[in-house]
């Protein structure tokens, strides 16, 4: 395997007495399309919150591009190349679609106002939101919000993009649309971790998949291998 972009080493996290993550370790390679699955409450979101910096892990370490980042604030991790989209879209609702992108372009990339606006327009074009640039972001449809989440993540110029259920609640053709965007991004060299409930999408997208259950990794492998794994089936069916 090529040098790992992200290494998660024995990371644990508790909420009260509840162990949301226990000793989770994984590695994601540069340029990889990586899938993270697991039933509700299995610790997927907790794990990526620990990676992106929304939560602090208790034990273990998180190394990104050779640097220990588990004590850094979230914004510092973003500046080092980790961006994420949110499961429930969290646009800056008082701003226009364009301005939503200008925030990371300014704060992460460091562009000045004029350049940031030009760059934002470019990103919106590639993602198909150019005609909504001036629309207040609280007036977008569900699929537009998902796209805005991804566009905003792109604006942070990440090396690693974590897509947290970017397809939840979308219709079939909309899922294809979003998947295409993610494939295109990966083609430009961006590593992508996809967390998804829609199994079909994960299986189509990922090169490698890890399944979490009750805060532990229960198996790892290719999409084809994973679906056949009895542990995974048990976790999902609750047998």
């Amino acid at each position: 395997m090529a040098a790992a972009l992200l290494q998660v080493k024995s990371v644990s996290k508790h909420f009260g007495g509840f162990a949301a993550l226990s000793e989770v370790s994984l590695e994601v390679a540069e340029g990889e399309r990586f899938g993270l699955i697991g039933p509700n409450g299995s610790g997927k979101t907790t794990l990526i919150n620990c990676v992106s910096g929304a939560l602090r892990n208790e034990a273990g370490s998180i190394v990104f591009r050779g640097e220990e980042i588990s004590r850094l604030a979230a914004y510092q991790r973003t500046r080092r190349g980790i961006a994420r989209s949110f499961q429930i879209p969290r646009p800056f609702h008082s701003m226009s679609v364009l301005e939503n992108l200008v925030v990371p372009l300014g704060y992460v990339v460091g562009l000045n106002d004029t350049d940031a606006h030009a760059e934002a327009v470019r990103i919106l074009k590639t993602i198909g939101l150019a005609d909504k640039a001036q629309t207040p972001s609280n007036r977008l449809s569900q699929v537009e919000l998902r796209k805005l989440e991804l566009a905003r993540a792109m604006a942070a110029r990440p090396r690693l993009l974590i897509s947290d259920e970017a397809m939840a609640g979308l219709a079939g053709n909309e899922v294809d649309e979003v998947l295409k965007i993610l494939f295109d991004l990966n083609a430009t060299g961006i590593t992508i971790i996809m967390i998804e409930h829609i199994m079909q999408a994960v299986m189509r997208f990922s090169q490698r998949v890890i399944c979490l259950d009750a805060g532990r990794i229960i198996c790892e492998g290719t999409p084809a291998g994973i679906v056949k794994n009895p542990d995974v089936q048990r976790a999902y069916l609750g047998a």
Partner: protein
Amino acid sequence: MSFELLLEAIVFGVLLGCFYAAVSIGLSVAFGLLDVPHVAHPAIMVLGSYCTYVLGRYGWDPIVAGIALMPLFFLLGVAIYRFYYESFEKRGSDAGVRGLAFFFGLAFIIEVGLILVFGVDQRMVEAAYIGRSLALGEFRIPWRMVVAFGVALALTAGLTIYLSRTFTGRAIKAVAQDEPALRLMGANPVRIKQWAFGIATGVTALAGAMLIVVGPVEPSLDRVYIGRTFAVVVLAGLGSMTGTLAAGLILGISESIVLMQFGASWAPAVAFGLLLVALGIRPQGLFGR
């Protein structure tokens, strides 16, 4: 400080603490569980005191009056929440900031309404337990503080049991923790919140009755309690009923001991200093989730 004085300080602190808990417990539901920035809570309590005063003139016992007022205040609470929900929560963004401003305005309006009807003079009530004390040898405890103690314990116990043992109670707790989950259960969160806010306002009527038992009341008294009630609720950890009692006790006992040891002047600073330190170290409150 002699042992005897320390013991007395603690006894008075416990009584005072229970009083603080009783005036805060309605807010513990409204703000702690429902996240409604209810700064008009003390104003509604003072309104309860005045209603008790009015009934008192017809010969009602204040605590009986307080209990009788509870259904009325429940309806008032339901109405206020409905209005708050329609005007702010439903519209989503910035509900917190504007809701806060709304409740401030409401507090002012209640205060001025009371002034217009009753004037600025203090009002008080009479009852067999006001102005007497319970003598334990040399040691005497005012009955009215004992009444406050009883009301606080009854309210805490009642609400704790209600929230943990009844279906609606559990639904209220659920709404506080995870709204989507509740929706999945098929319950309407707005309805439940409305009900809970009604209960919060209902118990505030009894707290108001107790307020006027403990001391005289004037329309602007609510300002004094904004800080204290929120301090208790936050110190407790949002939404914990037993925590509210404990936080009230901590506040009461520390004020009482500070009074004996360093002088009463420093008592408010100690109470609020305690709050700041608690927030700094343990933002979720002492007994928070």
